[in-house]
């Protein structure tokens, strides 16, 4: 046994745009233990329920994270709708599903780029982000924002998308497909990518279940778990099936996300074909008396929302549990025994969103 050294990783580290701190306990080049510490982005926004009315709270929750902001807005709206006992109209549900899947496309492309950057493949990073800009343009056209949209509200959505723009969304995404396919082939076949990912950070099915992994991390290890199966949105009507890979290594998790990009494009296409006419919102009035829970599948995995009313315009408690929070035990497990040079790849492989984790 060699001498043990502790190497600090972060909070300011070039590979991640967000601050996270890990104490890596090293024996020569091998990581033997990891002590994560968080708190650099903790804002305490759940406490804002005391100062913001429930209709305003949606916009606060949306700002938990700038990458899966639409999903958080939807989750917060849906949980408050549930507590109020109202339901958003069908057209609003379809529009929410379309925007949510669009944000999955943009989030996964962003992550693929960051992963490529993580192993030093800069041109691949640039290509992923170049493609992603077209998705952001669609967001800007339909909601007015590039990363923060504020388009979801309690009772429905604030903006409608007309038929012509819906067609444009589908056309744009279909024209992006060959480009995404080209990038995906590099991740799948290029030797420099495979060397860094195949067999690295393997997480077995049993470990994924025992450590409570969620989202693409769990699905990459063969766990059939996707909150889109639980009934939020219109995924039942679209015939949604979760994507599962079984190898459990970095390559499998990447493959899950690549396939999800194409799946999301298909889901959007189906949703645009099936979207009904009708109102896009119902009025949200009265005080919140009850409590309600809601589970949503964010690009990073399961997010859990809880709201409890206090019989007034203000909620008594709002709780959000986010996917990265759930994946940190799996990350610590993966890091033990890896090389120091693989640490950035493994940290990226769970698609960490620190601002979600700490809120």
């Amino acid at each position, binding site marked *: 046994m060699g001498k043990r050294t502790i190497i600090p990783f972060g*909070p*300011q580290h070039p590979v991640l745009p967000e601050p996270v701190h890990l104490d890596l306990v090293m024996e020569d080049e091998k990581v033997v233990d990891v002590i994560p510490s968080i708190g650099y982005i903790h804002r305490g926004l759940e*406490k804002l329920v005391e100062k913001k009315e429930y209709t305003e709270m949606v916009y606060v929750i949306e700002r938990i994270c700038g990458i899966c902001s639409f999903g958080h807005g939807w989750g917060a709206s849906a949980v408050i709708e549930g507590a109020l006992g109202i339901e958003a109209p069908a057209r609003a549900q379809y529009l929410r599903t379309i925007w949510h899947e669009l944000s999955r496309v943009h989030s996964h492309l962003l992550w693929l780029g960051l992963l490529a950057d993580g192993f030093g493949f800069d041109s691949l990073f640039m290509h992923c982000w170049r493609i992603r800009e077209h998705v952001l343009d669609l967001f800007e056209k339909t909601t007015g924002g590039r990363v923060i949209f504020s388009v979801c509200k309690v009772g429905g959505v604030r903006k409608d998308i007309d038929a012509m723009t819906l067609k444009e969304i589908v056309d744009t995404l279909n024209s992006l497909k060959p480009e995404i396919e080209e990038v995906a082939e590099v991740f799948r076949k290029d030797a420099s990518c495979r060397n860094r990912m195949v067999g690295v950070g393997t997480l077995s099915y049993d470990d994924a279940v025992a450590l409570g992994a969620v989202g693409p991390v769990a699905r990459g290890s063969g766990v059939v778990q996707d909150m889109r199966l639980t009934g939020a949105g219109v995924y039942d009507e679209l015939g949604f099936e979760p994507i599962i890979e079984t190898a459990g290594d970095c390559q499998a998790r990447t493959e899950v996300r690549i396939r999800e990009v194409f799946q999301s494009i298909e889901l959007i296409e189906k949703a645009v074909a099936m979207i009904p006419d009708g109102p896009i919102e119902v009025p949200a009035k009265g005080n919140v008396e009850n409590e309600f829970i809601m589970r949503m599948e964010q690009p990073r995995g399961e997010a859990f929302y809880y709201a409890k009313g206090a019989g007034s315009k203000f909620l008594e408690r709002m709780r959000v549990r986010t996917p990265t929070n759930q994946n940190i035990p799996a990350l610590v497990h993966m890091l033990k025994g890896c090389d120091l040079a693989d640490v950035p790849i493994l940290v990226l492989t769970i698609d960490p969103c620190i601002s979600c984790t700490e809120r």
Partner: protein
Amino acid sequence: MANIKRSPWLLHYDGSSCNGCDIEVLACLTPMYDVERFGIINTGNPKHADIFLVTGSVNAQNESVVRQIYEQMPEPKVVVAIGICANNGGIFRECYNIKGGVDTVIPVDVYVPGCAARPEAIIDGVVKGLGVLAEKRAAMDVKEAIPTNTAKEEA
């Protein structure tokens, strides 16, 4: 941008933002906006950086990190606060853990508004920061290490 003599190197730190402004900072570097064509590089080392981009309202745990990074940067240096949270706390202003704006911790030279700040606005803020950088350099009155062409001719 003809008056710009040197390409500044940037350092980005997330002082408890929601990620929205951070990915927009990165978007500035990628092909759609591509500031790297002007030689502007996002560096990870504070001692290489001229311009410090801070996003997010600084929280209690981040305060010392932001201050340390700022102190490590060589003079002259410019701080650009990106997004409404970095300007004054924004939507999180009333949170218990929030200091409220980067200027409560370190001096800020340029404020870029927006939630999230758009890449165009961030680039504009950096260009404004270049002006401040030039002023600061002039005020320091340092001798240039590499003689310019005009200096050679005079000699």
